[in-house]
């Protein structure tokens, strides 16, 4: 941690306890559940080894862990040639209450269908802000892009999701919907 800490192990344990579930959700949204534990272990080992580099503020430290995880996952995806085919799962943090029932099961089904029509890039930016609760600058850093570029992507992703949620029939002029498999959306263990 950047702040002086008399007991690094205690500070790391505190960070671990505070961020483990968030990080596990972050990873589970993006990879097969069977390998999520491995990725999380890798990230925390890296954090311990580079503990002096981990930001002192909790939310910045959390974003730092996400960035490390994102880079590891990118490597995995690249070697697996799966980067373009994975869709992000919609998982909710344990501590995050549902904000209303969204008019029940039918609305949820509509939402998942709309989500499936988004490109992985659109899903990524929405997930970083909606589920991972990162600020724009933090999310931009995770993706390695500028704040302005992230804001633009987010704006477009929200626009496309809204469009897909509208109850009109298919419109071929829809702004760039990329069909994705998204077979595991909405699943957990």
């Amino acid at each position, binding site marked *: 941690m950047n702040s002086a800490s008399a007991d690094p192990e205690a500070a790391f344990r505190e960070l671990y306890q505070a961020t483990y579930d968030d990080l596990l959700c972050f990873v589970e949204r993006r990879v097969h559940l069977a390998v999520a534990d491995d990725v999380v272990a890798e990230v925390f080992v890296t954090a311990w080894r580079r503990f002096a580099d981990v930001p002192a503020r909790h939310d910045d430290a959390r974003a730092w862990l996400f960035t490390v995880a994102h880079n590891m996952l*990118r490597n995995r995806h690249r*070697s697996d040639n799966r980067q373009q085919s994975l869709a992000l799962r919609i998982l909710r943090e344990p501590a995050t209450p549902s904000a209303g029932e969204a008019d029940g099961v039918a609305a949820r089904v509509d939402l998942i269908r709309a989500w499936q029509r988004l490109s992985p890039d659109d899903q990524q930016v929405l997930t970083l802000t909606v589920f991972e609760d990162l600020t724009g600058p933090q999310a931009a850093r995770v993706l390695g892009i500028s704040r302005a570029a992230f804001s633009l992507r987010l704006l477009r992703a929200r626009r496309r999701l809204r469009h897909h949620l509208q109850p009109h029939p298919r419109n071929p002029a829809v702004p760039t919907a990329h069909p994705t498999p998204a077979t595991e959306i909405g699943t957990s263990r």
Partner: protein
Amino acid sequence: MNIDEVLRAAAEPVPARVAQPPAQALLDRIVAAPPQHAPADTAARRAARPATRILTRPRAVFAALAAAAAAVAALTVPHLGDRAAYASWTPQPSPLAAADLDGLADRCVAQVNTEYGYPEADPAGRVVHGEKRGDYASVSVVTPAWTALCFRDHDGAMRDASFMADPVTAAALGATGVEMQSWPQLRTQEGDCRLIAGHVGSQVVGVDITVRAAAGDHSRTVHATVEDGYFLAWYPEPAGDTDTTTLTLRLAGGGTVADLSARDLYEAPRTN
């Protein structure tokens, strides 16, 4: 309609797991050694896993090289925060003796098999390159199925730095393409360093890599080894962002392909 709330409402809730025994056991294993002694890379990750865990298949990591005559590419490196620690490091590579190269390659291949479960199908098809800088050496191994880059620490210990399956073919790279197959960071007792390796097109005779300081106020030049269409190098580099690193390919005819983002190349190769 608040789109964020709609999304959250539709999400599948998952239970908290940090208090469960596997998560707590992982934490205890990680902090069993102090941070400065925590093993780097795959060895550390393996140590963090339960002994019974099955090794997962690789992620993208590394590179390779072939035999024969070496050209030299230029790497421009910025402020090297750990530079002073690597007193023996040189910007110009030295060749490895053939016996050293073969020995390191054998150890690297064995480590790839152990770490990633990728045996070498045909040892005769192996292509190896290496270089030495001060007390440290690196070696890359290319096989038809995978590439690997290994790093020899100053104490002689082999560090498997990176591994990548399914490299692109030379035909895909054409005349001026480039695939960056490895770009990992390692930490030795002397500090952090960056390794880089890749495969270039048939007309590429040199690779200039520019690494700018975060403030963009200065940079330094390192020379990478280029042999038979493959390049590799390593240099001290503080852990952190290297988004400004770029590559310039020097071509046989005297031309260049400039300002190729290393991060972009690591994401996807430049093919013809």
